[in-house]
């Protein structure tokens, strides 16, 4: 590969991994960070970008996306998801294994990784299934999946009910140094439920999912992590006592990381009123008190990361009676704006802390390259305008799906330039056309 040089000039570089927040130039050479310095002069063929007025951050990393391929290509493909990611400012995403068939062996993991590379947008890291066929019976081929590129295993979409199997998973992954990412849900408590169990569900006549369905399983997983010494990553924490359980476990030294989603720190179960299926998500949107607790958990670091749980669905799948519609909403293209609008603007996090929760901490949780602008780190960079005002219009999404509860919402903050491996893959000044065309390839 010919030496490729990019200079990002005049931006406000925020790199929580080095405690940097200052206006400085960033030099990227050959896919790696080469220098941070004032007034960097590059050679004649260097690509020089003026990023003054923008925040220059290590590329955002989303630990939780559903790219639907194989089996759900009408909702999203690995390619369309990877392009949706870079438009949202993400340079890497972790693809959950609950596809059809599930990603439960090295061949399937290799397929996801290869499709991700072909997409040529965000890095796509496969997450393998905990059990064969996601059936919750026998451990999947964890070691071989790691060799093929899996960065974690997860039961997302099909929670492991068998505590013995969860214990084995937490023990067995120890050899490979990867975490077990857990979607905590006691199915016997959540069965038939479609939204949070509370006054809104009662008024609407919708079967509820109690907070305890999440918390009971979370408590189990934390105890098993403590028992085994394994690494647990808790996905999409949505309740006050869930956050409290994690805070507690961390204080005891349990190896646990956790994520929260933009929808859980922004919306409450009242978003469902009117039977709005775009607000149907699992775990469900909770009451305001829980939402406040999620913000508090992100503030004090109990919840390490922000992850989207990007879950695309075709429009007619959501155009149904509430209880018949599937769970999930798309999040890649709204996450940064929601983080700035709901957390930074409202004083929950500083900008540097937001970058930490969306880049540095996720990289650490899953041992991924990136999350830092240290010399030698991958040249994965997101430049965003924290002051840009925009309105969410799903028609403009690069994702194949439009299922968002944020339609029409005014947001502040948007990615302007996304660089992956030293290559500019998203440039807002060029408009959406290129990303859209690329997103529809390899489908």
């Amino acid at each position, binding site marked *: 590969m010919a030496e490729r040089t990019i200079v990002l000039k005049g931006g406000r570089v925020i790199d929580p991994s080095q405690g940097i927040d200052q206006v400085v130039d960033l030099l990227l050479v050959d896919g790696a960070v080469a220098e941070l310095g004032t007034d960097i002069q590059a050679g004649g063929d260097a690509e020089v970008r003026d990023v003054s007025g923008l925040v220059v951050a290590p590329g955002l990393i989303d630990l939780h996306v559903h790219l639907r391929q194989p089996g759900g290509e009408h909702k999203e493909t690995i390619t369309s998801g990877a392009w949706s990611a870079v438009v949202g400012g993400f340079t890497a995403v972790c693809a959950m294994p609950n596809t059809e068939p599930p990603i439960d062996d090295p061949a399937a993991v290799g397929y996801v990784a290869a499709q991700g590379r072909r997409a040529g947008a965000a890095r796509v890291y496969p997450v393998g299934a905990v059990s064969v066929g996601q059936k919750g019976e026998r451990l999947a081929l964890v070691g071989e999946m790691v060799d093929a590129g899996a960065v974690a295993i997860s039961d997302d979409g099909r929670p492991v009910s068998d505590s013995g199997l969860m214990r084995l998973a937490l023990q067995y992954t120890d050899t490979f140094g990867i975490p077990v990412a857990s979607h905590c849900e006691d199915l016997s408590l959540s069965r038939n439920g479609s939204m949070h169990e509370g006054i809104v569900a009662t008024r609407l006549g*919708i079967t509820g999912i109690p907070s305890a369905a999440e918390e009971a399983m979370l408590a189990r997983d934390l105890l098993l992590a403590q028992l085994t010494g394994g690494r647990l990553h808790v996905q999409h924490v949505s309740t006050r006592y869930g956050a409290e359980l994690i805070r507690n476990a961390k204080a005891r030294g349990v190896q646990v990381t956790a994520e929260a989603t933009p929808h859980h720190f922004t919306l409450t179960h009242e978003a469902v009123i009117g039977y709005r299926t775009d607000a149907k998500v699992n775990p469900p949107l909770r009451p305001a008190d829980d939402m406040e607790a999620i913000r508090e958990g992100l503030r004090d670091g109990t919840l390490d990361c922000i992850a989207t749980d990007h879950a695309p669905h075709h429009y007619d799948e959501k155009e149904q*009676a509430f209880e018949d519609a599937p769970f999930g909403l798309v999040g890649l293209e709204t996450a940064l704006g929601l983080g700035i609008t709901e957390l930074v603007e409202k004083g929950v996090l500083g900008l540097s802390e937001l970058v930490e929760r969306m880049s540095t901490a996720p990289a650490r949780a899953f041992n991924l390259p990136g999350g830092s602008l240290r010399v030698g780190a991958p040249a994965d960079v997101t430049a965003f305008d924290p002051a840009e005002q925009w309105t969410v219009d799903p028609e403009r999404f690069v994702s194949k799906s439009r299922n968002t509860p944020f339609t029409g919402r005014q947001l502040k903050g948007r990615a302007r330039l996304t660089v992956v491996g030293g290559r500019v893959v998203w440039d807002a000044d060029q408009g959406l056309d290129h990303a859209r065309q690329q997103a529809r390839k390899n489908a």
Partner: protein
Amino acid sequence: MPPNTALGKDLVGLESLTADQLRAILDTAEAFKEISERQIKKVPVLRGKTIVNAFFEPSTRTRVSFEFAEKRLSADTVNIASSGSSVVKGETLVDTARNLEAMRIDMVVMRHGSSGSAQFLAERIPSNVINAGDGRHEHPTQALLDMLTIRDHVGRLEGVKVCIVGDILHSRVARSNIFGLRTLGAEVGVCGPRTLLPAAIEEMGVKVFARIEEAIEWADVLNVLRLQLERMQAGYVPSLREYNRVFGLTRERVQAAPGELLVLHPGPMNRGVEIDSDVADGPQSVILDQVTNGVAVRMAVLYLLAGGEPEKAEAAKVDGAHG
């Protein structure tokens, strides 16, 4: 289609109705009641209007009551009754809505197993939509006829203490009654096994009674809900016999009431389970009045949604002119 009727375009539920709107329906129903007493039970109020009764769940009672109401107002009616057949299961609500819209009908009366289905339909078609029961959400005309029956017998709704007994969790009748009665100033209680009371029910502004004896002590009116057999099969209550023993409305319990007690039941009854025969057929029971009032209330709703004015209901009975 008149968008600005006294009730708006649709009757999806009672939660969104004001006290004035609820009173307008009840007063109009009162005026229409007399038609059912006539030799020729027909007035030309809805002549030329087409109404589809789309029942995607079996319900003889409600459908027949609506049909009587429609025919007595001279509407043209068509029934799409599909008792949970696979054909209906396969058709999505969207397709149902599109098909109904293509028929260019004036009004749709829909019963559907999914909560929110009535609103779903109302948002997608220009016809007036009347909810005849959507899942566990609302069954507004049932609650209206319950309220009319209570008002007939007690003379008012303000301050009347009404306790709904039984499976509140799965009951659209309970929800509509709670919304409507509270808006009109009644006090509402609920009583049933805790497994069949929905979460946070107190936040709907109702009193909760653990024991039927306490409920009877407090209430002026008991509205006794049917206990579906499936609830026992699903484990909400251990047995029907035990349910009758703990929550059943027996003669002894009714006789222990401190004052006069009115007993309603939306039907169909499980005699010997939630209500004993001597109560169902006894002096406190107004169950047959409910059936009569059902037709009058549905006539009132149809009339008002078709653009009729509440004050002109008396005149409309004669000449069918409603603007």
